[in-house]
């Protein structure tokens, strides 16, 4: 057990060293490519390669200089707001639709072709159309997240409903459950874990989409910030952005996983 713990710390550390070594090699061969040290200084402050004293991005994340110049914290908050708005909308529409498709063969026949066609469409393909419709950064980002993250929710919810075993339905029949009782006492308990799997996938997609969407819409947000830093030739900050996006995505997934486990009867009462 203790041995395992040591491995879990030491082995990723070895990979980290390897990654840093490759990174340094790349930085040595590409002009102006930031080294790990440049990125560290950009993040936490210090004297940069040009000999200027700078405040790190992460050292002062809360500053607000003006409407267009805010700290990294505010960039992330704005991105998260859009992600949640789009995600909640997708869940509100996707769950009932998934329940319907799971319960009714006719609904399944009716919607399935469209789900299959629109599911693989890239958010970047939707973006121009939605930007044209809304002419507004927030609405465009939210609606792009909505149309790209709704599919896993619909598909998994429907899958959950279809997974309700015939035996449970027979129990409901013998007890003469009404349709509403069937939904709340039999179908939902089975389908909820699937729903959350769908929502977890969906939230992951939403977080992927927001970076791309904000790069194109501009304004404020982590995606736009990364693009802006590119335009400012501030390459170390791009790498900080990538790492931040990764860490936040990981945290979102962890939280969603915990919530999913809480609602999953298969993970309950099985100590």
């Amino acid at each position, binding site marked *: 057990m203790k041995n395992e713990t040591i491995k879990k710390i030491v082995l990723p550390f070895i990979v980290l060293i390897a990654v840093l070594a490759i990174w340094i090699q790349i930085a040595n061969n590409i002009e102006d490519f930031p080294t790990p040290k440049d990125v560290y200084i950009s993040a936490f402050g210090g004297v940069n390669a040009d000999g200027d004293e700078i405040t790190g991005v992460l050292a002062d994340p809360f500053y607000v200089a003006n409407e267009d110049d805010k700290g990294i914290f505010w960039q992330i908050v704005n991105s998260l707001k859009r992600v949640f708005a789009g995600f909640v909308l997708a869940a509100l529409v996707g769950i009932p639709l998934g329940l319907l498709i799971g319960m009714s063969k006719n609904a399944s026949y009716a919607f399935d072709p469209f789900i299959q066609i629109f599911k693989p469409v890239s958010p970047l393909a939707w973006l121009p159309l939605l930007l044209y419709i809304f002419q507004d950064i927030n609405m465009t980002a939210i609606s792009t997240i909505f149309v790209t993250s709704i599919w896993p929710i619909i598909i998994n919810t429907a899958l959950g409903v279809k997974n309700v075993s015939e035996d449970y339905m*027979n129990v409901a029949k013998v007890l003469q459950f009404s349709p509403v009782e069937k939904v709340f006492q039999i179908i939902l308990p089975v389908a909820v874990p699937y729903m959350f799997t769908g929502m977890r996938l969906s939230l992951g997609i939403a977080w992927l989409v927001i970076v791309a969407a904000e790069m194109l819409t501009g304004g404020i947000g982590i995606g736009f910030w990364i693009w802006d830093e590119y335009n400012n030739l501030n390459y170390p900050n791009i790498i900080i952005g990538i790492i931040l996006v990764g860490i936040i995505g990981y945290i979102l997934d962890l939280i969603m996983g915990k919530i999913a486990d809480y609602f999953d009867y298969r993970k309950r009462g099985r100590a």
Partner: protein
Amino acid sequence: MNKKFLVLENIEKRFPIPGKEDYVAVTDVNLEIQKDEIVAIIGHSGCGKSTLLNMIAGLDMQTSGNIFLKAKEVRGPGPDRAVVFQNHSLLPWLTVYDNINMAVKKVMPELSSKELRERVERFISMVNLDHAKDKYPGEISGGMKQRVGIARALAIKPDVLLMDEPFGALDSLTRANLQEHLMKIQQKVKNTVIIITHDVDEAVLLSDRVIMMTNGPSATIGEILEVNLERPRDRVALQEDPEYIRCREAILEFLYKKFAKEDE
């Protein structure tokens, strides 16, 4: 009314096969079952015994013929005919207590919460599961699950208890244990029981009459055997009992001589 408690009249079940003639699963089934009688239906697999049970339960509809329970025609499933399924079909997200509670609450909405609790606990005690009432189905053994299934079925006070190979998925020791449970419960509270089985000893041990089904297609009742054994029955003492041996032999003769079935 006591005589004609459950009546099956000219039951036939056909399954349509596209482009071919219908498959006749069971045909010409006529049977009368009395109140508080325990009837076993035995036959090789594919003889339509489960189909027959499902039709009595109302989960499946006969193609022709009628089923009457207490002189009322059976149309669709209902709590007056509780089913104990082979795979127990407990709801895995509910505890043992809640599985039974859910059923009783639905069927007897007039009970006060105190009466409801007492009824659920009484039936949990009846199958000796007091210690496991707050466990989930995933945490208890197959035999215990089946006991919960029996308690749930009996707790809704059905006119008929329908058991579809209730102990088929269990090992033989657990099965014997559950048979004892069932007989003890039957001593305490009389029920009308129809039990589907493919186990000869189980059929003789538990029932008052054994219905023997011929092989499908077009399966029907081949013979009906009366089991004239006193209750309570003791499985060990019975092994020497001439009546027990006679019944056993009659069923074996039917299943393996008259209607032997080759492996397909």
